[in-house]
């Protein structure tokens, strides 16, 4: 197999170009967003959010069919309800936010499974749990472009607030920053990106595109800006390699991308000279 067959030939097909483009767009915004999720210890909350989209998407599919706009708003509403609902519960009752989130998302996920099993739809559950890059439509792509542009714009415009809120929230609030707003903003952005990534990656695996590049970058970088850049770079690399692997090996696209990024993460966790496991063992400073 020549280099052309390996790298260029797959992208002579429109559907492959669309899949790649959508993965690249979401890699940029996911790479940025993932850094904040990792540093603010919101990684598991992102996972919970991704599961809570299910009932919204299922209900939208039932009412409006496969329209991208309907699926988008269905998922968005379900995700925001989970985020807002758990914020309310944690502020108004003695239940802490993690428990509130953990309880609500599983209720939402259960409602989604119930909807899907009850309705005589043609909804293929596997397709939107794990994604199908072959089915990316033009409107999916425009959605990914809008969400990715939005996320990048927010990071550029509010860079200082994000930096402060991430590393020193107490100082940020003391100087007049509104922490609660920034927090909700992050959750909203996460939901937006998850919904946009659904078709290519599937809701369960989409978070991998956000978190894995960010944790890998965290193992190499000490400055926020270099972590952001490396994270985006890794997300792009993982998307391209993952999509090529999925084409040549006949694997599901979302899984292939996540596995490529997972390989980078495990290698980083082992071999990063300053923050990796092997370095720590050699220095004898394992915690």
């Amino acid at each position: 197999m020549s280099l052309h067959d390996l790298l260029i030939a797959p992208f002579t097909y429109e559907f492959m170009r669309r899949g790649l483009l959508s993965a690249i767009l979401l890699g940029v915004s996911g790479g940025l967003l993932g850094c904040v999720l990792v540093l603010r210890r919101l990684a598991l909350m992102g996972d919970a959010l991704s599961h809570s989209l299910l009932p919204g998407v299922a209900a939208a599919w039932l009412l409006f069919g496969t329209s991208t706009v309907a699926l988008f708003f269905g998922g968005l509403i379900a995700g925001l309800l989970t985020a807002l609902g758990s914020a309310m519960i944690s502020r108004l009752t003695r239940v802490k936010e993690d428990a509130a989130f953990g309880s609500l998302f599983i209720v939402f996920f259960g409602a989604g499974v119930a909807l899907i099993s009850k309705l005589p739809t043609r909804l293929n559950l596997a397709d939107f749990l794990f994604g199908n890059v072959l089915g990316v439509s033009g409107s999916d792509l425009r959605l990914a472009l809008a969400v990715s542009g939005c996320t990048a714009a927010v990071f550029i415009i509010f860079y200082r607030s994000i930096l402060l809120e991430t590393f020193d929230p107490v100082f940020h609030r003391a100087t007049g920053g509104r922490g609660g707003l920034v927090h909700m903003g992050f959750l909203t952005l996460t939901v937006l990106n998850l919904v946009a990534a659904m078709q290519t990656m599937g809701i369960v695996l989409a978070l991998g595109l956000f978190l894995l590049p960010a944790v890998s970058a965290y193992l190499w970088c000490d400055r926020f800006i270099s972590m952001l850049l490396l994270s985006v770079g890794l997300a792009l690399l993982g998307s391209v390699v993952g999509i090529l692997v999925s084409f040549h090996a006949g694997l599901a696209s979302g899984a292939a991308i996540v596995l490529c990024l997972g390989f980078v993460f495990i290698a980083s966790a082992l071999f990063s000279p300053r923050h990796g496991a092997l370095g720590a063992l050699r220095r004898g400073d394992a915690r």
Partner: protein
Amino acid sequence: MKAILAPALFALAACSAWAVPGDAGPLRVVTLGTVLAEIAVQVGGSDAEVVNLVQPGVDPHTFNPSPADIRTLVDADLVLASGLRLEGYLDRLVASVGPRDRVVAVGDALPLVLSTPGPGAGAEKDPHWWHSIDNMLFAVDLVRAEFARARPGHAEVFARNAREYRRRLEALKAWVSAEVAVLPPDRRQLVTSHDAFGYFAHDYGFSIHAINGLSTESEADARHLAGLIDLIRRERIHAVFAESSANPRLVANLLDETGVRLGGTLYADGLGPPGSGAETYEAMYRHNVLAIVGALSGP
């Protein structure tokens, strides 16, 4: 998740009592598909009560009976299934709703059963047997025999009904042959969502190029779709067909990419809902043949 739930439901059903079939009253038949329901209604006439569990539009490959469905199944005198592993859940069902001879898997007894080399795992039997009218004729006879065995007193009525229905199917068969004869052999190429038209292709000399495999559950991969796109361009295939119970997104992308037109929506896994123009077997078959011949014979 469904797979975990189902055995529990079946176990539940097995505990409840079920009636012993007698020769009194109408024959209670439960069918697991629209085509089977039509056969049962046509053969049974007013001497059978037919309840169909898998409604039009529901994917029969992935249907999952609810507790209420299981109750209906337990109360039935006879259960008609397609067989040939169309209903992936059938073995568990048989194990729970009672003696094996109450459940008749029609496809398992047919003279013509096609096999397709499955992806990786050797030959797989094609469960879409009703797309061969000869198989339909055989199935009608099989159902008549089963009905007569369950209600010997009504055997003559069933035989008369079956004869009448078979006569109509023979007429349909003659009509289809005449329609398809218009297409030159090199035009007989069928690109569809999933591999459901093997029997039609076998009877009328088509070759099938499907995006997915025999079940709507099998996943297409990117390389396969790329190969299909190449084939459509190379062979100058005129049209691609969508299916009533499959994800339309992949077909939409295929049309985008190759610029060929959508030949229409075919009924692959059963009959259409009321008002669709494909709510009987004959209407469904005519719809499919007209769509295929119309789209492929164009300039």
